[in-house]
């Protein structure tokens, strides 16, 4: 069963330290997969490998049949892969509106962008996304002044402005209040209707609410995969978590 994203026998080592060891995975179109695993399992490294921040030592990452490994970050983003970082990375000195405007990257040619002052398609998208991420009243605020939860939403909003087909979200609800988590769950389910998501998350309660599929990583390998109930019932998965992390579920 092939998917929109096929990862085959991926390896990554830093010096002699093997972080990803023969990882393979398929992601099906318009699903939300959650990636869980103890600290140091290699989840963020995997995100880095997919989005081009790191180059794999060997193995392949194929997206809609195209090989991604070896491409630059911007080329991978151009192919429709959006990324939200673990530590929210927004442009703090710019306003929320500017952050979202810049993220609309349908046109990346610098010469054409020199002549671009008003962009109707962008404005329409901006209106849609700002409502979706609940920032429509905060557009003229400098992004550095947003609360932590709002900053997370802004970055999710930025990835949505990119009109991605595959979204990589690294810990999207870290530091959010209960109400904000509810909003985010709703938001992710809405996004899932048009695109595919991979979410790295520790909070099992949240995973239970949003995930179609759960993949467990352990020591850089694909440890288990299944529906959330299967994973929670899986004795081996319980074992690798024991002592290393509290099972939030």
């Amino acid at each position, binding site marked *: 069963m092939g998917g929109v994203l096929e990862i085959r026998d991926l390896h990554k080592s830093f010096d002699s330290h093997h972080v990803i060891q023969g990882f393979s995975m398929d992601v099906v179109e318009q699903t939300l997969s959650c990636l869980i695993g103890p600290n140091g399992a290699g989840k963020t490294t995997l995100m880095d490998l997919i989005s081009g921040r790191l180059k794999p030592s060997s193995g392949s990452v194929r997206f809609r049949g195209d090989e991604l490994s070896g491409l630059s970050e911007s080329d991978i983003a151009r192919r429709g892969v959006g*990324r939200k970082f673990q530590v929210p*990375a*927004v*442009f703090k000195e*710019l306003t929320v509106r*500017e952050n979202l*405007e810049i993220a609309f990257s349908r046109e990346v040619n610098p010469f054409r962008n020199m002549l671009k002052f008003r962009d109707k398609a962008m404005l329409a998208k901006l209106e849609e996304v700002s409502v979706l991420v609940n920032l429509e009243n905060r557009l003229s605020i400098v992004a550095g002044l947003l609360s932590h939860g709002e900053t997370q939403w802004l970055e999710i909003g*930025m990835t949505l402005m990119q009109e991605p087909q595959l979204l990589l979200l690294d810990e999207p609800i870290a530091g959010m209040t209960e109400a904000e988590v509810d909003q985010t769950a709703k938001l992710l389910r809405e996004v899932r209707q048009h695109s595919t998501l991979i979410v790295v998350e520790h909070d099992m309660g949240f995973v239970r609410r949003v995930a179609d599929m759960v993949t467990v990583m352990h020591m850089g390998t694909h440890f288990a995969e299944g529906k959330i109930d299967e994973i929670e019932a899986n004795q081996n998965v319980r074992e690798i978590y024991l002592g290393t992390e509290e099972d939030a579920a």
Partner: protein
Amino acid sequence: MNGNIYHDKRAQWVVYIVFFVSLGLIPVMQADPFLLNQLAVFGIYGLLAMSISLCWGTGGILNLGQGIAFGMGAYGMAMTMQMQSQDPEFSPLPSFMSTNGLEQLPWFWEPFWSTGGGIFLALAVPTIFSLIFGALMFQARVSGPFFAIMSLAMLSAFYILVLDMQPYTNGANGISPRMPLEVAGYSLDPYSPAAYWLIFGLLFSLTVLAKLLNQSKFGQIVRALREDPERVRFLGYNVALYETLIYAISAFIAAVAGCCFTILIQYVSPDQFDVVFSITMVIWAAVGGRLSLIGAIIGAFLIQGSESYLGDQFLNSWHLILGFFFVIIVRFLPNGLAGLLEMLLAKRSRSSTEESPPHGRAKSPAAANAEKAGV
């Protein structure tokens, strides 16, 4: 609604109009040719400060080697003007070359027989050099202080090269063309209002173009990469390409300034490649406010103006004062005088919104009565 007027686009354009109209009217009121010439030279400094503001302010690329583009432009124009006063038949060789033992015009001097070709090269060579150097550096993701140091090293390499190539550049003596630039049969007297207006027109049009560039999507992306180039990369933009372009555009403006410099001064020497001069450009932009194009221009006017007019009294200690002032600015006003203005205006707009509620209450009858009772 009560935003800072500093960020109001309409207010900014009004400031631009007032600023440039008043600069443009100077030759009408002031006819002293030497003063006009000096003010025109200030216009060149303004161009350079503006080019630094574009690269460093907008793009966050601190370029300590802007003198490369400036010097190349200046030398290109000097070569053009020099060849205008040479005769292809009777004296094809500038006199300094024959004194230095050359018998034939070097090949890279040949294109400068043509005025158009010469000016084209004076602008194109530095721009292309910056495209290549910028692409090398930015593709390798050299950034921040490392790029600043490399641009400085490149500049000092050019300085010693120009100094060293005595037969081709006349070394430390520099090139001093005998006649003013002649374009289409019209001789451009460097002390005339025409020369002033030429510089002023270039300053005006290039600044407006730079401002439009800043307001375009391109400018927006460049501002974003100043803060976090990695994030911009993940949005799908080729960061190195954008950095190279803003750097090369800035270098092009400096090359224009270099050409104008030779037109006005009729002399060029390795001093134009001097490290101190390039860093002085950065000081202008830092003092005026690197984030504001017009602020940087005013910074150049202020500093060079005070050097010329206060310099006589403080001739010995001028660098001491300049250094001290610069340190104070960097320490306390990283965004320069324009940043100070922005802060003051922000305070004003905030205090006016805070004051308005009690103001409104004072108008209510009860408050008015209380006031009367108080009196």
